[in-house]
């Protein structure tokens, strides 16, 4: 059965979500793919509370946009998603830009809550579809949010993994280093290495990222799409819509 790249990524993310105990996931301004992954985990029966920041009707927060940060500060968010204009080999995130501060060469939108959420959430899954030496760099131009912290600085969690359009990396915070876990269909360890600006380790059992099953695809294109339509109409039209119309 054929599938869209976004569907493969949503399934890969969903496996990472359920791989660790997860009671509450918050999804922010990141790509809609993490939201699809969360819904997929929920629709498969995972007992997860899902807080979607940008949900217009039935938004989970009643104390305004500060509530997400307040409850994350308390440790009530087990998992958050972040991306980055640049991500480096120590899992530092750059959402500021390149060139002289504050991004005089290329300006990205800005750091959003990353400087707080990355350190206060129980863990973070990094997601960036573009996998190129331009995005995955040896050292970010500016640090919006640090991948690891010094002793004496309160930090609750780190990156669990980095999922891109080419592969899945795990992250080892003790060593500050990514480990290649699986490559997506059509990719190899060599093709990933050629497209990655930072050095990384390769897991002993590195394999291919599993393709979505028919059951997963049916959930994504049905109940998951229905949940996402209001918040991400453009995404739903592009990824799920063509099939619905066909």
């Amino acid at each position, binding site marked *: 059965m054929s599938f869209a790249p976004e569907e493969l990524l949503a399934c890969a993310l969903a496996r990472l979500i359920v791989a660790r105990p997860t009671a509450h996931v918050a999804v922010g*301004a990141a790509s809609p793919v993490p939201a699809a992954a969360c819904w997929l985990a929920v629709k498969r029966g995972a007992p997860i509370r899902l807080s979607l*920041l*940008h949900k*217009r*009707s039935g*938004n989970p*927060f*009643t*104390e*305004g*946009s*500060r*509530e997400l*940060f*307040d409850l994350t*500060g308390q440790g009530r968010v087990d998992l958050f998603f972040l991306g980055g204009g640049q991500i480096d080999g120590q899992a530092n995130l750059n*959402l*500021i*830009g390149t060139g002289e*501060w*504050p*991004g*005089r*060469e290329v*300006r990205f*939108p*800005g*750091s*959003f*809550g*990353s*400087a*707080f*959420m*990355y*350190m*206060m959430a129980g863990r973070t899954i990094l997601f960036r579809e573009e996998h190129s030496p331009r995005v995955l760099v040896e050292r970010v131009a*500016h*640090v*919006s*949010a*640090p991948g690891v*912290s*010094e002793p*004496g*600085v*309160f930090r609750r969690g780190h990156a669990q993994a980095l999922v891109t359009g080419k592969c899945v990396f795990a992250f080892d915070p003790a060593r500050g280093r990514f480990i290649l876990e699986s490559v997506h269909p059509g990719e190899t360890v060599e093709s990933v290495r050629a497209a990655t600006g930072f050095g990384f380790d390769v897991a002993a059992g590195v394999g291919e990222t599993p393709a979505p099953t028919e059951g997963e695809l049916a959930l994504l294109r049905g109940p998951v799409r229905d949940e996402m339509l209001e918040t*991400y*109409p*453009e*995404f739903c039209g592009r990824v799920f819509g063509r099939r619905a119309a066909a």
Partner: protein
Amino acid sequence: MITLEEMAASVPDGALVALPPDNSLPSVALAKALARRGAKGLRLLGVPVSGFATDLLIGAGCVAEVQTSACSLGEAGFAPRFTAAVKAGTIRVVDATCPAIHAMLQATEKGVPFMPLRGIIGSDILANRPDWTVIEAPFTGERIVCLPALEPDVAAFHAPMADEAGNVWIGRRRECATLAHASRRALVTVERIVPGNFLEDERLAPGAISATYVSAIAVAARGAHPVALLDEYGFDAAYVAEYARMARTEAGFAEWAAREVFAPRREAA
């Protein structure tokens, strides 16, 4: 009760103006009115990020500085006039992170000089904020960031309704309440004025801002458009996409603004 144009006239050049972003009741109507009055040197504060209204004001040449945690048009992509202005160096950008902006406003709300906030240490945002400082926390001994109280000159947002007593109803968008509490003046545009008093209604009172904090109200029907307003109307994606396309260049923005900001107002759809 004043008119929209009177409200815009009451915002002095150079004022620190706090605006909520596209998911949280921005007054696009007031932003357009500020552009029409030719406001200059405004310092905008994104609460906690910035969107369409901020990009519009930058494009219209009203802005000297933006303090924000991010500026974007959501699904329509990068904010084109913000991005161009950063590259050209024509505005000063003061980068923050969302909970820091909330905390700085909450400090003012509480009348205390600063608020501590975890996280941030190790971010270059901190290195570029000489007004933020790191202390050893009492009680825990951890290193923690202290953020100064921030008091905007003006809070500007758009609410579904105000009542005859001057109270404003914002529902669950409580950041607008914090913003009103923390600002010297709160200027609120509304869809409509309704009879009665929200504070006497147990269902409405928790989503209301008391008139104590509201300096002026102006009626502006569809005043959040093209941004969504709670459950009253949706996000006009086609309008924002057209803006994003045209505002890529200064000339394109000028053409867009001539039609959408400066032309005599058409009847709202």
